[in-house]
């Protein structure tokens, strides 16, 4: 069985904490196979993954979060409505066990996929604005984009992770 965890002086990488993936000896020189490497310039760590709802009458939302004074990235995905659906139908946060709700879905881009050459999609979307408040918090503003006036609810899932520098 390979050595997997090293806390101390690594022959190649010096003092630190190192964890290798299954089957790889952590004492080897190649750090491409490290799951954890204390010599990395930074380590991405997830801070939150939160869903907000936007509607034609509530077109923006804000999320204020602890960013610990370091640079954080925000990535958004969205859920969208078809036909008479509303936010309750498409929200992805949770569902009772053994209860199906196939209208709940998220994607990197919203909208109905065109099924053929003549099919249409939906044209709603969102934007994210992530601001460092310089007080160990950040604020993300999520804005509703509806250029053709479809007036459909959307849910936006915002993933935030920190990347120390």
């Amino acid at each position, binding site marked *: 069985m390979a050595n997997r965890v090293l806390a101390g002086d690594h022959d190649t990488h010096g003092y630190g904490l190192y964890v290798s993936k299954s089957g790889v000896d952590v004492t080897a020189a190649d750090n491409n196979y490290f799951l954890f490497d204390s010599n990395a310039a930074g380590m991405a760590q997830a801070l939150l993954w939160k869903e907000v709802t936007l509607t034609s009458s509530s077109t923006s939302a804000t999320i204020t979060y602890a960013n610990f004074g370091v640079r954080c990235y925000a990535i958004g995905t969205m859920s969208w409505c078809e036909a008479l659906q509303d936010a309750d139908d498409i929200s992805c946060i949770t569902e009772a066990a053994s209860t199906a709700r196939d209208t709940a879905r998220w994607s990197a*881009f919203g909208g109905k996929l065109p099924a053929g*050459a003549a099919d*249409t999609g939906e044209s709603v979307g969102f934007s994210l604005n992530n601001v460092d408040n310089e007080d*160990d918090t950040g604020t993300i503003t999520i804005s509703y984009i509806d250029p053709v006036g479809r007036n459909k609810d959307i849910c936006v899932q915002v*993933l935030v992770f920190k990347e120390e520098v």
Partner: protein
Amino acid sequence: MANRVLIGEHDTHGHGLYVSKSGADVTGSTASNLSFSSHFTDSNSGIVSLNGEAFNVYSKGYTDITIDQGDILATGDITWNRSVFNDGSTDRCPLIFCQVGKTSGDTPTTHWLPCILSQKNQGGDERAGYGYRYTVRPYYTTTTGLLRITVSRGVTESGTTNNDADIDFRAFYTLLYTRLN
């Protein structure tokens, strides 16, 4: 040389695992000097903190998708057991990453970014573009969630279907334990 790793009780942040960035002493009180901390908390209203969790992988793999001659779209499905993401009372939605390679093989040399798959040609006209998109349906059936990957090679500006030969794609995916709140 600065202390870089602390396993145990930190004077400011309490018990845990801490790693400082190069040149910074891990025993210091400044959180921004830490490249890794097991003590991230967030008391802001409406925030359910992930506390700095790693992107821990539940499952990963790939599926091959073929667009037949004359077609512009094809889909591939991946399912998972919803009970994996049950928090004790309700099922939850997992974070999923997905990427599509242009050709088959263990290590396709070309990976795309997701494409919006909806190009406007002229007034009121929306068409599929070249690329892929994935949609996650966490509560698709009573027992399973669904990852549906759609690949497209687009249509011409006039809207006629693409009549090129079959083309194969390989879609890689990763299901993470990270859950939506």
